[in-house]
């Protein structure tokens, strides 16, 4: 076909640029996989130590499509981690709000918070098992424990870091404590709270999986352990990749939420939100003349 080139074909579009940039990564990644596979097939690698990509791929295929046994473990771990996340985050944020409001409460919990932070949460896993047993509750408890701190400290820091002039403004407008919190302190803190939530998510996953190592009948942690103990390292790798996928999935969800909610920190979002607000105003208060 000999049609005249369109403008898009002449000028590199954004998608073309993105494609070009990701191409480098795809080539690099492909190269690594290729060399790895070759090394494996030529007998340079011990499959009990470092299985090569095709072996791992075969395990993934089996887990997801042939036996399909990953789903049960995947969703068990996901549910435990997500529930633990919500519990840990709720406790963390509630304590932070309490501490932000009451200087006395803040002084009382400050030393505990410091000790809590420097103590590796994972280390209490055996105690958690002893308290909560071998079922799902111990996984949720450890997940909540491990992910509690980042939202707590971020929320407290953010709430305490309210602009002084804005505080004066609210005081001189006669704002109540409640208005001050909901209209100034909280929205002001949201970006930092979200940063804490992202850290908590990783923590929740970590806590769940470690608890599963100790004792479980379901979950990707136990699956990983079974493979490793059976020296099926290719299966372990496949499980590890599944865990990465789970983490990535949850993290992406948070990113999307963050992007949508904290629009005012993102230049690319503000235009569209601004237009939406204008449209909302016109539909609600159309009678009021706006330029």
């Amino acid at each position, binding site marked *: 076909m000999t049609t005249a080139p369109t403008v898009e074909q002449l000028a590199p579009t954004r998608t073309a640029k993105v494609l070009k940039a990701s191409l480098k990564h795809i080539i690099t990644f492909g190269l690594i996989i290729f060399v790895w596979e070759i090394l494996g097939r030529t007998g340079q690698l011990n499959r009990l130590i470092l299985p090569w990509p095709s072996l791992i791929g075969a395990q993934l295929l089996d887990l997801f499509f042939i036996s399909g046994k990953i789903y049960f473990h995947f969703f068990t771990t996901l549910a435990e981690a997500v529930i633990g996340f919500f519990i840990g985050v709720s406790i963390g944020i509630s304590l932070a709000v309490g501490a932000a409001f009451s200087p006395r409460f803040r002084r009382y919990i400050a030393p505990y918070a410091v000790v809590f932070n420097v103590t590796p949460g994972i280390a209490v896993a055996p105690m958690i098992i002893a308290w909560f047993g071998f079922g799902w509750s111990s996984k949720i408890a450890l997940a909540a424990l491990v992910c509690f701190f980042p939202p707590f400290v971020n929320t407290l820091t953010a709430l305490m870091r309210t602009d002084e002039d804005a505080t004066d*403004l*609210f005081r*001189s407008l006669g704002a109540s404590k409640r208005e001050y919190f909901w209209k100034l302190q909280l929205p002001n803190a949201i970006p930092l709270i979200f940063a804490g939530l992202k850290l908590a998510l990783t923590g929740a996953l970590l806590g769940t999986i470690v608890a599963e190592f100790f004792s479980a009948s379901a979950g990707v942690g136990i699956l990983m352990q079974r493979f490793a103990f059976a020296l099926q390292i290719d299966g372990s790798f496949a499980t590890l990749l599944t865990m990465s996928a789970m983490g990535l999935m949850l993290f992406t969800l948070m990113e999307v939420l963050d992007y949508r909610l904290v629009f005012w920190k993102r230049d690319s979002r503000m235009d569209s939100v601004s237009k939406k*607000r204008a449209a909302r105003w016109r539909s609600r208060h159309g009678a*009021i003349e706006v330029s």
Partner: protein
Amino acid sequence: MSDSALESVTPTPQPSFGGDVVIEANALTKAFSEEVIALQGASFQIKKGSFISLVGPSGCGKSTLLRLAAGLIDRTSGSIRVHGEEVNEPRTDIGMMFQKPTLLEWRTAVENVLLPNEIKGTIDDAARRRAIEALHLVGLKEFEFHFPRQLSGGMQQRVALARLLQTGADILLLDEPFGALDEFTRERLNIELMRIVDDTPTTSLFVTHNIAEAIFLADEVMVMTPRPGKLARIVDVPFERPRSLELQLTPEFNAIESEVRDLLGSYV
């Protein structure tokens, strides 16, 4: 009046509730600690509808004076009265403006302007209409639904000005409101501010570092000196209103300018 011991220690001039005195300070002192005396023994009266500039170098207690008048901080001794009442808590009939725009980033311009109504529970269509009008008045037609980050520094400060007008306060406390802006924007905003307050019966206290700006806007210039912050003199600015920028080129203006400069003397 009895001549008790207390009164003889702190000679308090009789407060004159002359009908049109809005803010009155007597021996007003604020010390943050034994060493740090932000303001010492300031006495003055501000008449209704007047525009007062406060000039002085950094650390002379200008902002402290404003915050005392607004009731945002407590005085150490002396008295400060607004509309004849001792100021003991934040006064909601006072509007404040700061060097930073202090806008809520997650609200559009008009939502920021409506904040005072929201907090005072007076939000209705009339308030909304006034908010839009206030934005038009400060020159922000077509920017009603922009977020602060989509606006320049000068425009953000205009939103803050519109919000100040929206409070309906009859006393405006302006703490170097245009101090962070470039010279041109600052000059334009000064003129617009003057046009707006000339049209309304508001009383304004305007803090600035800039002597020419202080004189140009004001009916009286309160000159302050630092360490400890003291009110050195109140200089009368007798020029008629409305004023134009050319006023700054007249010999009379220059005479007042050098008088203020002399008062500030070694401090500037």
